[in-house]
């Protein structure tokens, strides 16, 4: 059975390591914060200017001056800190953030990513995505394996305008965990009950399949 959004978030949460600072994009990535493995501590950075983001506020306790990059009202954990946007991107560009998780419309086997613009449609802008993908050493893409029309989002080359090049190292989809190495997709894990053939069919780019492909353990 292919994973739902929560399943993808849970699998990505397994990649977290104690002591990491993590930036989570809007959508599925945001859900990762709910599934931090027991025994480890991570801090979430939101690029509008907070480290140590906490859960949503209780009803009636929201503060218009305290939001995340998705413009949602949030809270601050103990030990949190606020800063300006230049300092925020100094953290990102200077590689002080250990992991970035974000969504994508397309990823190529070179690690290129497209997630900000569809020609002919209204362009809302890249926000912080170009800084994040150009800077982070460790980027995980969280997305569905195929789009709504059933077309693969894991391509030889991206067809949409790029957000960044040669940057994605790992993709977690509803079907699989895939690493990108030497300009190829490498299948690492299958979603529970999903066959290698199903993943192969849903992947347009070159997919390296090892002899055994374990099922994800979620």
């Amino acid at each position: 059975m292919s994973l739902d959004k929560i399943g993808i978030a849970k699998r990505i949460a397994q990649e977290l390591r104690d002591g990491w600072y993590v930036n989570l994009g809007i959508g599925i990535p945001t859900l990762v914060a709910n599934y931090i493995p027991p025994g480890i501590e991570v801090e979430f950075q939101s690029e509008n200017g907070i480290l140590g983001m906490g859960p949503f506020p209780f009803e009636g306790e929201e503060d218009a001056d305290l939001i995340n990059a998705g413009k949602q009202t949030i809270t601050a954990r103990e030990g949190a800190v606020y800063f300006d946007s230049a300092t925020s991107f100094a953290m990102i560009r200077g590689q002080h953030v250990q992991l970035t998780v974000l969504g994508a419309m397309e990823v190529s086997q070179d690690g290129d990513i497209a997630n900000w613009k569809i020609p002919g449609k209204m362009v809302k802008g890249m926000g912080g995505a170009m800084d994040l993908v150009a800077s982070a050493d460790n980027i995980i893409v969280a997305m569905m394996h195929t789009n709504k029309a059933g077309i693969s989002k894991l391509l030889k080359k991206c067809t949409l305008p790029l957000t960044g090049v040669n940057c994605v190292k790992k993709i977690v989809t509803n079907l699989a965990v895939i690493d990108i190495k030497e300009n190829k997709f490498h299948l690492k894990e299958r979603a529970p009950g999903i066959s290698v053939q199903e993943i192969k069919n849903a992947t347009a780019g070159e997919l390296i399949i090892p002899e055994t492909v374990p099922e994800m353990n979620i």
Partner: protein
Amino acid sequence: MNKVIKNKEEALIGIQDNMTIMLGGFGLCGIPENSISQLAKMGVTGLTCISNNAGVDDFGLGLLLQRKQIKKMISSYVGENDEFERQMLSGELEVDLIPQGSLAERCRAGGAGIPAFYTPAGYGTEISRNKEVREYNGKPHILETALTADFAIVKAWKGDSSGNLIYKATARNFNPMMAMAGKITIAEVEELVPAGELNPNEIHTPGIFVQRIFQGEKFEKRIEQLTTRSK
């Protein structure tokens, strides 16, 4: 050094058609609401606005869009409002989209006398078109230039008569860098106190960057995405 201006009407004197204006804020958080409503009232047109976002239909920079006062937006993320989309698709509105970190750093550079710097953000994308590329540490970077403005308008939580500013929580965002980059910087504050009442160790924007400061009349502080959990 007394920089206190009586009200928003006087604070914005000198802003004219076709000027470039920076406005602090991220989404609707930390935007100079009083100044924006005054700009709408003044009716200046042909403005180039440098602001991370463009407000919503009936609040923030959306108010100026409705009145067609903006010629060009320089932002990282826009389009939370329908009128923006209409003007952009019809070609009435020019839009220059810049990666958020580059936007913040370019404003800081403008204020800090750094005319240009290299950043990896946008390399290999349409953002790097016509930009100089240079490799550092085995990684390609593009050259980005400083941004400045005729006026920068920022919003702070507390300010003193010398122009020293303290922001609250994530309402800080772009305000400090834009305060540095305005030829004239106007600050509207929730609480205006005499010089000496702010702790000099806790000030975010030193008064040297601010030319005019006024007490905002009323702050609506609209929330864009109210998200809560139940008790």
